[in-house]
């Protein structure tokens, strides 16, 4: 059928007139969430959905929130900042969400932060940029330990436990990597150590030879890293081994991600990661792991656990407060002490940070083996 011009024009006009369609408001408690359904982090979006499903099943099985079922309404953020802002504002425009979840990517949380402040409703997030909870925004709550802690754990484990003093830091030049690097340099400094090389790289590289050669030349006895994307990690790891660098390596959580381990294979064996989530760190974590594997046939990682914990905490807070009013939820979250989630035991401080420590795990021939948990009081 030939599309005549008239038809095309008519079609466009009709489409322009179509209002946004909202789902009929069933009687559920809705939590709005943005997630990367498309874009480079699309896989994380998939895992987030899994985590959300598990949380909702757990919550609704126990009677839901205030007697109603809880629902997670998701909008695509396309892994971009503008996408996050638009997705989030679309959720807000629905008008029926009592609380929200945002992103594990700090740059996106930053992007929606002004809207969150105006919205004045609780928003849970998983990004680790420490400044997110120190920017004067009372509505942001973090269900992962932030990077000031990951850096301290990396430094502590590498320098104290492994006893290594010649450090090389490899980091992504994006927000996450740069902040992580800064935190790590600071933590090492407190231990009296200055890194022999700090090497940044831009995300989505095709080749890491220059980085590897620089590392090799610096002759470190330990590598600390903040990698954002698993692809980069995989390529770097392979080339690192090809060029003969075998020193211990303690990396940010991406090193222990399911995807990284799959991509890099044997080249990541023997490396250490700081992982906010590890299945052997607690009985709750173990239970989550077993259920997740049973349902989805793949190991869970922190891409889903932060969201699981976030939804569980929101449900708990609303049930504790017996209300869905924003201030009430907020007060209830801040009142949470010693709640055992999958990522750890939550005690919220007045900034909205619930966790203050990390697990150190080891990649033992493709299996993640729990080593120890390091916590800080503040």
């Amino acid at each position, binding site marked *: 059928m030939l599309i005549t*011009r008239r038809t095309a024009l008519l079609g466009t006009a009709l489409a322009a007139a179509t209002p946004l369609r909202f789902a009929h408001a069933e009687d559920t408690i809705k939590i709005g969430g943005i997630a990367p359904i498309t874009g480079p982090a699309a896989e994380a979006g998939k895992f987030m959905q899994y985590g959300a499903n598990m949380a909702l099943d757990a919550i609704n099985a126990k009677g839901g929130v205030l007697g109603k079922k809880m629902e997670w309404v998701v909008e695509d953020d396309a892994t971009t900042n503008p996408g996050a802002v*638009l997705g989030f504002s679309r959720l807000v*425009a629905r008008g029926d969400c009592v609380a929200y979840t945002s992103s594990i990517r700090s*740059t996106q949380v930053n*992007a929606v932060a002004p809207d969150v402040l105006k919205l004045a409703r609780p928003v849970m997030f998983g990004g680790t940029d420490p400044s997110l909870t120190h920017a004067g925004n009372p509505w942001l709550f973090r269900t992962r330990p932030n990077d000031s802690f990951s850096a301290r754990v990396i430094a502590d484990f590498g320098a104290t436990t492994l006893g290594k003093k010649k450090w090389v830091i490899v980091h992504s030049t994006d927000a996450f990597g740069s902040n992580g690097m800064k935190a790590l340099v600071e933590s090492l400094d407190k231990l009296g150590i200055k890194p022999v090389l700090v090497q940044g790289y831009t995300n989505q590289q095709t080749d890491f030879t220059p980085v590897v050669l620089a590392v090799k030349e610096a002759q470190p006895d330990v590598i600390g890293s903040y990698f954002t994307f698993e692809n980069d990690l995989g390529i770097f790891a392979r080339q690192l081994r090809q060029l003969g660098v075998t020193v211990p390596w303690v990396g940010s959580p991406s090193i222990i991600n399911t995807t990284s381990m799959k991509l890099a294979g044997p080249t990541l064996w023997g490396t250490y990661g700081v992982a906010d989530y590890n299945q052997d760190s607690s009985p709750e974590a173990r239970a989550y792991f077993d259920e997740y594997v049973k349902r989805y046939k793949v190991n869970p990682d922190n891409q889903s656990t932060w969201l699981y914990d976030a939804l569980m905490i929101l449900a708990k807070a609303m049930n504790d407060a017996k209300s869905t009013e924003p201030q009430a939820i907020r007060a209830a979250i801040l009142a949470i002490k010693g709640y055992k989630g999958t990522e750890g035991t939550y005690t919220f401080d007045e900034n909205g940070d619930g966790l203050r420590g990390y697990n150190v795990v080891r990649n033992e021939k493709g299996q993640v083996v729990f080593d120890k948990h390091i916590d800080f009081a503040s």
Partner: protein
Amino acid sequence: MSVNLASARVWRGTPQAIVACAAVIGLALIAPGEGYYLNILMQAATYAIAVSGLVIVLGYCGQISIAQAAFFGIGAYGVAIGTADFGLGFFPAMLCGVGAAGLLGLILGLGSLRLGGHYLAMVTISFQQIMTLFATNWISFTHGPDGIRNIPRPTLWGLSFQNGHAFLALCFVSLVLVTWMVWRLKTGRLGRAMQAVRDNELAAGTCGINVFATKVIAFGMSAVVGGVGGALFAGGFQYISPDQFTFAESIVLLTMALLGGAQSPFGSLVGTMLLVMLPEWLRFLKQVYLAVYGAAVILIMVFLPDGLWGLMLDRVIRRAKPIVGTVAPLPLLSEHGVESDEIVLKVEGLAKHFGGVKALDGVDLAVRRGSVHALIGPNGSGKSTFINVVTGLYKPTSGRVIFMGQDLTQAAPYVRNRAGLARTYQNIRVFRGMTVLENVMVGAERPGNDIAENPAAVVERALAALDFVGLRGDAHKQVGTLSYGHQRYVEIARGLAASPQTLLLDEPAAGLNMTEKHELGELLRRLKGHGMTILIIDHDMNLVEQVADHITVLNFGRRIADGLPNEVLAHPDVIAAYLGEPRNEAA
């Protein structure tokens, strides 16, 4: 009775613009003041501003720019860094950002000096990528990938734009003003120059347009407009980061321009709205929507060739009405031609070698004032090369070109035109995207022409030229709809409108039928009667014999004969050149 300018469609639309401003302010007040719809509208408005910048450089001037997001970003960063780090107010910071964008745009335009098409596109892409890398990695200045947040909204004369409605109104009013300016540009002198460059760069040069300067200005203006959009974007979303101004965004902006119709700022508005809304409408498709979006782009390109605006315009196009009213005739018509011995155009020892090929091998020629001088020769003898060197399209290998006493050997084509040399082309070079009248106006408004600075007089002069060639009635038609012969007349009119001292005609009779050739001969005789000096290249011996006072013959790049027509045409060398040596007949 003088011509009504409005009928010549040179109106300015000022009252309409004011009304539009008022209307959009009203719109902004009733639109949502926050949330999803506000964000969409702000994004659409600021992007539309940036896209109208593309209308200037791409639509009008025909230069591909895939760096518009970079300029958008520079404007945004100007506001963000200026307010956050330097404590400037919003508008001063915006001025810095827009200024920086403009400056870089001009520099990027310099890249167009020797390149066009795909090459220029790559230059712009490189520029875009380098900008993104700096934004991400120059952390001390740009805050790096963290981006900059808490960007304030402006306060002006006590009026605060903090409120969503107010800022949206600001965006809308800016959009109206930018659209109006871009639209006005099209019907102004600079706009016509840009379109001439787009449609036919070589001809634009020989019509007195400084092609390079025009391109650079187009880039500069486009960058400034992009910067304005970006500055407002920063104020609107109050948070910016480098990944909002990447190559992918430049592609989005380019696609918006092309889908809407790059020739018109209204088209770009439509395209922007569509491409901002389309992903949002398709959200319900969840994962599939970007795939559908990609397919939609292809479909729109295939089925809507002139963009959406072109589609709508098709329905609305007015019939071209003839312009009534008398105008002052061409100034040259008040002169009476007298042949004199004064040499107007003198060419000495002109040589042009292309590698080993000697297209011109030392040619001397002298054209006297008021005469019709014909240059003939067999195919490949160098006639067209000759005229191209004389008009500046090629640089000669050696020799001199002296026109009206000025040595123009190394001068650019537009300089020669401004000195009084006008030409037409063998393969007609009219500006296809413009009307007949606009084509001739380009000639009339060449810098240095007596009436060039007066828009009304330019129109009148153009009409006068059209009167002379008998095409007044076709003034509003798109030049491409005319017959071949008439398009040639438009070229001649364009040349005449520039008040030339000498007219160079490259095979004007090519492609004309018998009647048209006869008319052409008449036209040339009339011109000569008014004292115009003409250098004509042609193959048609009838025409040449009719009009020429003096003939020069070229063969293999050399002059083999020069003098009065009857002498030259009987010259044995000339006959041999055309017909070959006589064969020895068998007895």
